């Protein structure tokens, strides 16, 4: 059956070993980064590198770099929805105080953390 299919995108394969090597080096950096102890650097090495690694896996291993654009749109729409969800519910879930109100329940527990 598989022969009748359009063998879509018979593209040349990149050097996967090199990509794997880069990913492992990035992994090592992201583990070592926090050991320096600068919070901003930790954030960048941890999450910045995670994004880079994810993009590399998506582009080269999942072949999104040669895939039809519509796949990107599918994934981006799903991701966008999650960002939207995060920022819209953040005022409720993350901050428990506003201009004219505050949540008593969370203030009791987190007073030492939130206010200082």
């Amino acid at each position, binding site marked *: 059956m598989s022969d*009748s299919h359009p063998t879509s995108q018979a593209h040349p394969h990149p050097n996967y070993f090199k990509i794997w090597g880069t990913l492992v080096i990035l992994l090592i950096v992201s583990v070592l980064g926090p050991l320096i102890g600068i919070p901003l650097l930790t954030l960048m090495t941890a999450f910045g590198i995670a994004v880079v690694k994810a993009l590399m896996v998506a582009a080269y291993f999942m072949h999104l770099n040669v895939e039809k654009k519509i796949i990107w749109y599918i994934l981006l*729409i*799903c991701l966008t*929805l999650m960002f*939207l*969800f995060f920022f*819209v*519910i953040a*005022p*409720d*879930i993350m*901050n428990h105080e*506003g201009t*004219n*109100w505050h*949540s008593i*329940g*969370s203030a009791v*527990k987190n007073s030492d953390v939130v206010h200082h």
Partner: protein
Amino acid sequence: MSESHSAHYNEGLIKKYLFSTDHKIIGMQYLFTGIFMGLTGAFMVYVFRMQLAFPGIHVPGFGLVSQAAYNALVTNHGAIMIFWFAMPVLIAAFGNFLIPLMIGCDDMVFPRINRLSYQIFFLSVIVLFASFLVPGGGFGGAWTAYPPLSAKAEYNLTPMGAPLWLIAVALEFVAFLLGGINFITTLMNARAKGMKMYDVPMVIWMIVIASLLFMASVGPLIAGAIMLLFDQFIGTSFYDAAKGGDPMLWQHLFWFFGHPEVYVVLLPPLGMAVEVITTFSRKKLFGYKTFLHSVYITGILSFVVWAHHQFVAGIDPRMANLFAITTLIISVPIAEICFLVMATLYGGSISFTTPMLFALGFIIEFIIGGVTGIFLGASGTDIFFHDTYFVVAHFHYTFVPIAVIGFFIGIYYWFPKMFGRMMDERLGKIHFWGTIIPFNLIFIPLFFLGMYGEHRRIYNYQHFPELNTPGLYFLRELATVSTVVMLAFQTVFFYNFVRSLWKGKKAERNPWKANTLEWVAPSPPPHGNFEKMPEVYRGPYEYGVPGRSTDFWPQNEPN
């Protein structure tokens, strides 16, 4: 690629009707399971409406309604009507039946995943019924299942019923995810030769967009349901404010799905109404692309309105302002859609067949439901109306047209294709008026009750002096009696349905003289659908084209 069938479909009866991979049989399985669940939900509403209008009555066919039973009935009425009636019938049954036929192919792209989808759905039905039978009885924490009520057995008093209910809902989601991905992929990849994006019949667009909305919105709730299950079973505290969790989180996870869900069930019957209205007014759909783009915009906006369900739940007031605005904006594309339907009707040669009556009834009643939503979408007025019967009346004015009337549009219109026989028109019209008049008499009183301040979720209004007046009781009794009358008139439908299966007039291939591809296949279509796979030359709504001898122009006719 040569597209002819060499395969023979010689299957035994059990294989053919219970374990078939044929999209039409799976559609029928969804249809009949959905109808059965719809009747279950209808029985529930009959029982608790009797209790509300005549407190303490021994309801015929049920008996005395206890407080726990009342809560379980209301909860499961809501959940069943949305998850086990509207979705399986409107999306799964009609989607399965119509998509391959209307886009001109022989089946879904993944027939066995399709079968698996129904089997998981069937399992969810069994788990749901099991949840009624366990010690403590069925879950009674409303279909929204807000924690802490749903999370803690010491509050909801249904230690087994609540988790089983949640598992049933989760299984139903899995079934519809599988089915939805199948629908989407089928439309994208398996269209007949020549069928371009704007040649796809509107009902197919609607079912697939509904599947897309479902797929994109249900994920957070699946994650949330796992978290709630852990809260119930293992004693985690995801939703327990005292231990660092947040009950508001569930509300957001739920309504992030819950509001798009409204459009998930709205769009398929809207598409059916479009098919019926164009066919029976013999006119081209006015503004096909505008219609489709309005639906796109509705779909996008449906993801940013969810918090209007939570205006009084203590959300950030700045967010409440934003959500009030987006909620009012979403009525613009919906209004656009209604205008396009009216413009389609304008100047058409309208014949009031039963499906046409139901389609028009759908549009009119839905507009009432939409307009009353404006009061609830504005965060100021919602403070007064929230959790009153005004809300109940509003969403039933949208959901009953969607689920019940929408179901009848589809059944009356596609019955000849599904079963090869015509339904009786006279009985159909009796059924229509017997449904639509009591429907209004049920819910118009509820609007007034809501404005008088009648709170939802109350078991017996005799306990509240200001709600225990003869005037209010008259309205409650009017609504309850109308419910019974409306339910009684459904026997006309079932009589008509069963009788027509055997005694109805034989249907030809194209009894309504419609354009879309399903009318090219024999009635009922065999396994494999078409003798020869059709090709498409034009859009689906070419009615009354000047210079032609017939007033319709099937999509597959080469000039």
